[in-house]
């Protein structure tokens, strides 16, 4: 069974075609990279895969289940999408503990381990509002991986990270792939895509092209 199957996915918002008849099949246990200009449709594609938007036409299946029909959201999903935050008045651990309590499938020690894994201190008493941009991004990655999801969807995962942070995240993603997770990354940093991804796709004007398919890579 494929991890993600997308058939003729089209999304039109206010007359503007954001995603245009995308068909794509992604295997389990691989890292897929999506690159392209801002507003090319990368984030909207990820939102459709995660069940956050409804397609105008077409179908998305994750692990065989139709998103928006069989399930509202993929059943085992970790993600980071742009412009999403945490509760400012809570510490990093408190934020992740609250989110973990929704599914209730991991322990406090699992949460602490995920926070340590991204180079943060789970006992840090600083509230999220006092975190630097890099720390916020690291915490976002910790929440995406803490429940050991089968599908990890990351929109610009190395944004705001310093060199050490970028290296750390790259290693984490390779470890997650080793665990069997399927990982989708959208990034404008070509090095991220080149170093990590088994397959690469260029997103342009709402369409998807395999890298090297003749459409100019940037």
């Amino acid at each position, binding site marked *: 069974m494929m991890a993600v199957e997308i058939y003729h996915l089209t999304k039109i918002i206010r007359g503007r075609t954001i995603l245009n008849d995308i068909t794509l099949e992604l295997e389990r246990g691989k890292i897929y990279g999506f690159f392209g200009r801002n507003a090319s449709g990368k984030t909207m594609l990820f939102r459709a895969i*995660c069940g956050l938007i409804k397609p105008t036409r077409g179908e998305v299946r994750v692990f065989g289940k139709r998103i928006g029909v069989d399930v509202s959201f993929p059943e085992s999903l970790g*993600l980071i*999408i742009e412009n*999403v*935050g945490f509760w400012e008045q809570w510490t990093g651990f408190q934020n992740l503990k609250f989110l973990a309590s929704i599914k209730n499938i991991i322990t406090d020690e699992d949460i602490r381990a995920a926070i340590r894994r991204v180079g943060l201190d789970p006992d840090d008493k600083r509230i999220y509002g006092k975190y630097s941009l890099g720390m916020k991004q690291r915490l976002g990655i910790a929440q995406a991986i803490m429940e050991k999801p089968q599908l990890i969807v990351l929109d610009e995962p190395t944004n705001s990270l310093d060199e050490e942070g970028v290296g750390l995240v790259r290693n984490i993603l390779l470890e997650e792939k080793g665990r069997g997770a399927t990982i989708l990354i959208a990034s404008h940093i070509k090095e991220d895509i080149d170093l990590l991804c088994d397959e690469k796709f260029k997103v342009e004007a709402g369409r998807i092209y395999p890298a090297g398919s003749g459409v100019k890579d940037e």
Partner: protein
Amino acid sequence: MIKKVSVFITAVVIGVLSSLIRLDFITNLAEGASIELLVMFTANFLPYPEEKITFELIASLTYIAPKLYILIAFGDFFYDDFRISSVYVFTRKDNRVKWFLDKLFHILKHLVLYFAIITAVSVIIGFANNLPVASVQGLLLISSICILLNVTVTLVFVLLINVLSLYISCEMSLFLTLLAYVFAHLPAIVKRSDPVQHLLIKLNPVLQPVLPWHDDGFLLDYIQPLDIPAIPGFNVYWSFLVLGAYLVLAVFVGIRVVKTVEITDRNY
């Protein structure tokens, strides 16, 4: 957590203030003062409009203010998840409807507690001021009805604010809903011909909790000595039916909206 504590402390304060204000009114009655009446008048009384415009500031405040406060306190209950962390919260739920129902029951639990505190405080103040209990069964019945009617009408409006906030800004949805909520009280202020007045009151969600206008037998025992006119056919069953219909509609619309609303970057 801080919000919850402050809401319940406010419930105690509102209960104490409203009960003390109404206690004065109750004890000035020639006869029939009881804890049941105090409970009824603390958060469930508005004067029936006898003149072209009838407006009693104290009665209006004790009736409307507790509900306005809780509407404002829970007005951003859904929006918080959307604005702050929609993606992380939503995708950890089995489905959108479950998220909505979890929220609904969470709000319901808090509303019941909020109005139960106000009612309990008015009972305690009644006891502390040596008011008699005319009937323990009557007290329990009236207290339960007061709580349930207030909870149901408030839940309808909390849902309205929250569902609207998924389309327009949270502040605007709060403002519009509160405006509609306050304007809906007009049939309690402006006098019209009795049939029209009665119809407007009977169909109006915000006026269902005004217990002294109901014509149930167990209420008339308390109300008749006060010379407050009961509205024919306006009874507690009717109120639950009307509010139940509004609530079912609000829940149905809420589920429809939550099932279809798109989580994009608009405002969150």
